[in-house]
Structures are given as structure tokens and as C-alpha cells.
């Protein structure tokens, strides 16, 4: 059985950054890269199934759409026990929106004949929340979003998931498998890779392919495969906290007011 875990290398910003010349993105020098927070949980869930009852034949494959720098994130997953890692890239993918990315990942999922596809609910940089479920649409697979708990016995034709709704209530849903699921933070407690795992992962191969290699035509990738386009990116006026001025006594008094107002509503 094969579980495909799709991950993303996300970018974060410090304060005081600069825009790229065309004002459609940030100057890359200011970007700090990391693994998407959600992806720690999706990988852990795949490993949990692999290490659990009936998991002997489960192969965990991690995949991402990204340039060279994304290899680092794939290696983090290999270090935690993923079996294989694949990266897909082509310069045209620079302009891909989540839907265009999903086209690539879906093609990969088809190639791999994955039984389960796990993605994070969203990415911590742009939080579209679309890639995972767009893949489901392209694969025409049963799907559920925002899964906070998964009960699945490898080989079974259905799984039971708990979707975490607004306000904390759960919706318990039975779903046919194979399926595509987006998983929520807190679904499990992600492991830390051992140092040995990290060092071994540094030497493991990563399969790197282009979209053409997995059956995508030029018209399907990058901007052409997207359903939206960035027109302009800019810094909104209110970026920082509203500072409460005054002597400590005055500041405390304001804070007391904020707290009392909150409690009044609560």
C-alpha cells in the first residue's frame, strides 16, 4: 500500500523587507525557508499507519513542487522515516498558483498509484487551503478536508475521519478509500528525527523530475494551469501592534479594560 504525502517549502519574512522589482512578490533575499508546519503532522500520520497494525507493506512517499532548495524539506521527511522522496520542478512552475501545483501533484499521484494522499489543510505562508482538495478533484477521489483524527486499517475499503469544525465540534464522517485527505494540526504528536536519521537522509537520493516527465503538457503548468494571477503585492498600512501609551499605571488600566471587555463578551 502506498501513502503519498505532499509537502511544501514555505517562506517567511522578518520585518523590514523589500518588494521585488515588479511588485508581485518579495525580494527573495528576505525570504527564510522552512517546512510547512502542517507537513510535520501529515508525515507523522503516514508513519503512524506504517508503524501500526497491518502497516508492514506501506510505502511512504513524500513529494513536493519546488526548486532545489526544497530538497532540504524532503530530507527532513526522509530523516523521519519516509521511504522515498520526489521533487518536481520546472522554471515555468514559478508562476503556478495552488491549482497549477495540484495539477502536477495529481499527475504524480497517478504515476505512483497512491492509495492514500495526505496534504496539510493549508500552508503557513499563504494559507490558500486549496492544493490538497484540488488534487482530489483532479484524481476524482473521495475526499475530506480538515481531518483532526483518522481511523483506518490498512487494506480496508473505508476510513473514519473526524473533521474539526469552527468552534471545536467534530463531524464524524465515514469515507471510501482510496481517498485524499487534508490533515489538521494536532492530529498527532510529530516525532523529531534522530540525529542518525538526519545524517543518513543527507545521503539518500531524491528523484527530481520535470512536469513533462510525468505526463503534463506545457499548457497545464505554471501560469497556464492556474486559475488566478497575482496582480500586485503590497504592505498594508497597519502592520504593527497598536501601542498603548502612558505610564505603566495607565497602560495597565487600558489592559484591564481590554480584558474586562473580553470577559463581558465571553
Amino acid at each position, binding site marked *: 500500500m502506498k501513502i503519498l504525502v505532499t509537502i511544501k517549502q514555505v*517562506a*517567511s*519574512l522578518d*520585518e523590514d523587507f523589500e518588494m521585488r522589482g515588479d511588485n508581485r512578490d*518579495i525580494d527573495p533575499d528576505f525570504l527564510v525557508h522552512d517546512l510547512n*508546519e502542517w507537513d510535520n503532522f501529515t508525515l507523522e500520520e503516514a508513519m503512524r499507519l506504517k508503524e501500526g497494525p497491518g502497516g508492514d507493506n506501506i510505502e511512504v512517499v513524500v513529494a513536493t513542487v519546488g526548486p532545489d532548495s526544497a530538497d532540504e524539506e524532503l530530507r527532513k521527511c526522509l530523516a523521519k522515516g519516509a521511504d522515498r522522496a520526489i521533487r518536481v520542478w520546472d522554471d515555468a512552475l514559478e508562476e503556478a498558483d*495552488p*491549482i497549477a501545483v*495540484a495539477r502536477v501533484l495529481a499527475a504524480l499521484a497517478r504515476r505512483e498509484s497512491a492509495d492514500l494522499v495526505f496534504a496539510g489543510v493549508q500552508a503557513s505562508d*499563504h*494559507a*490558500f*487551503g*486549496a492544493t*490538497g*482538495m*484540488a488534487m*482530489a*478533484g483532479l484524481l476524482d477521489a*473521495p*475526499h*475530506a*478536508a*480538515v481531518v483532526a483524527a483518522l481511523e483506518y486499517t490498512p487494506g480496508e475499503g473505508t476510513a*473514519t475521519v*473526524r*473533521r474539526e469544525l*469552527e468552534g*471545536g*465540534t*467534530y*463531524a*464524524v*464522517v*465515514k*469515507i*471510501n478509500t482510496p481517498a485524499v485527505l487534508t490533515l489538521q*494540526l494536532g492530529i498527532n504528536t510529530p516525532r523529531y528525527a534522530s540525529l542518525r536519521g538526519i545524517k543518513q537522509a543527507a545521503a539518500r537520493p531524491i528523484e527530481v523530475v520535470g512536469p513533462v516527465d510525468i505526463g503534463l503538457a506545457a499548457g497545464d503548468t505554471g501560469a497556464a494551469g492556474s*486559475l*488566478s*494571477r*497575482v*496582480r*500586485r*503585492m503590497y*504592505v*498594508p498600512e497597519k502592520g504593527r*501592534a*497598536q*501601542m*498603548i501609551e502612558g505610564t505603566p*499605571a495607565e*497602560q*495597565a488600566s487600558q*489592559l484591564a479594560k*481590554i*480584558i*474586562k471587555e*473580553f*470577559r463581558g463578551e465571553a
Partner: protein
Amino acid sequence: MAGILVVVEHRKGELRPVSRELIGLATSLKASSGEPVQVALIAADPARHAQALQLAGVDEIVTVQSAGDAFDPEVYEASVRALIAARQPSLVLLPHSVDTLGYAAPLVVRDGHGFTTDVFKVERDGDGWVATRSGYGQKVNVEMEFPGHATVVLTVRPGSFKPVEAAGTPAISSLPAPQVTPRSQHLAFEEPAGGDDVDIPGADFILSIGRGVGEEDNVEQFKELSDSVGATLGCSRPIADSGWLPKSRQVGQSGKTAANCKLYVAMGISGSVQHMAGMKHVDTIVAVNTDPEASIFTIAKYGIVGDIFDIGKELQNHF
């Protein structure tokens, strides 16, 4: 005159408030684009909610009767597909919600509509729609456009638009329910298990202390303070490491994620990546720190540059 289609959301028999916000957005856009506003309701018993949707500015309510009342992604996807086919709107507004996260993307990827999510501003530009959302952890705004798409589907951030209150007299019609064989079934709703004594994930109000607290003896006054203001006391890693507070009170990457927190008062916490990992979604963060450039001030809603003891002592006097 294509139309602006709003798909409302309900759960457990209640229309969700974001629905009226979307209608508010739609009716304000009507003013600039001249298109009629259609409000779509997918439910087992549409009549139950139809009355609440008879709002000013709405031209038509279209109902689709579903087999069950609980959300199903394939039923919603097929229903919205049928609605779009029938009414050919130029704009489709959905709430950005747990439910739409399950069906909006599959819908647009199959049918090829313009699409983006979690927008808090929508405008007309020439003959196209432009929507604005956040980027890079809400540090920037991003304007999105959809060249070449006759229909644009947007999921809208809750709390961004004023709901419509006034009543109206829209026409009411219905669409035949599309044939769907869902591959998942809603079994039940479940409430989360009750928390124990110290429940950081469940707490809606957390007061957190960091290294600035200095010594174990000083922790007591903040315990008293959190008690008085009605907050759950949390802390950053160094405090828990020293044994001054139980590990269960640790907030941040190596501690508990404060999932339900609405108000977070951070005292003497600089806002390192590790601590703030769990806090990004919190509505209101108030940070108290002596360093005016502490990173926490970039994600806090309110900031106080000050000494946590001075502030804490004075705050105590108000409770």
C-alpha cells in the same frame, strides 16, 4: 447581466452568521457592477432558512434540496455546479470555512473557473473582478486577478464584511437536486472532550510569562494575577524547564498549541519563532515587553512597552 451568486452555509439547523456577511458583500458589489444577487441554499428543508434570507438587495433565492442536512462535499460541489450552470454568474461567493475547504477547490479545478480563497476585499476593475487576500503569514496584501474567466469563485474571510440586516422581497425558486452518489457519509457530530485542570489547548484566555519573570518566587504573583483576571496561566519553555510551572502550561512549538485561544496576554515574551508557532491564529494578542522592537509586537494586536512587574502589579489592582 450575469449575476452574483452567494452560497450560504448552515449547520445543525442554524444559518451561519458569515452567510449574511456575504450577502452584504454581494449587495454592495451589485451597486458597482449592476448584476443581480442570487442567494443559494442547499439543505434538506430549504423552507426552514429561506425566510432568514429575505434580505434587502437580494433579487432571488434559489434552493436546492439535498437528501441530508449535514454537509457533504460531493453534494455541495454538484449542487453549486448546477447553480453555476443554471444562472451563469460572473461571481460566486462562498464563505472561507471548514466546509468550503472541502469542496470549493475540486469544483473549480474540474470546471475551470477563476479562483482564490480567504479574500477580504473584492472590487470590479474594468470587466473583471479583483480580490485581495493576505500573504506571507498576513504580512502583506495580495491583489489577485482572473484574466479570461467568465466566472470567478471566491471564498471570503469571515468577519470582513458587514452583514445585511434589513428585510427584502426576493423571488424564490428552486433547482432540481443533481444526481450524486456520495462516497462519504456524515455519521454524527461530536463535542470535544472536557479539559483537565490545566487546559492550554482548550483555554480561550491565556496569560503567558517568559524569561523576564526572573525567579521562581516571582511566578507566584503572575499565578495570582492570571487567577484574578480569569486567564489560564501559560509560559514559555525556559520557565517550564526550570520546574517553576508544570510542562502542561508551556505554550509554543515544544508545548501545547493554544488552539482555542481568543485573547493572549504575553508578558515578557520576545516572540521567538518557537513560542509563536502556536499563536498565529489568536484573535487578540497583547504583548508586554521592555524592548520596543521585540518580534512579538509584529504579530500582536496591542503592545505595551513596559516592565512586566510594574504592569502586572497595577493590573492586579483592577481585579
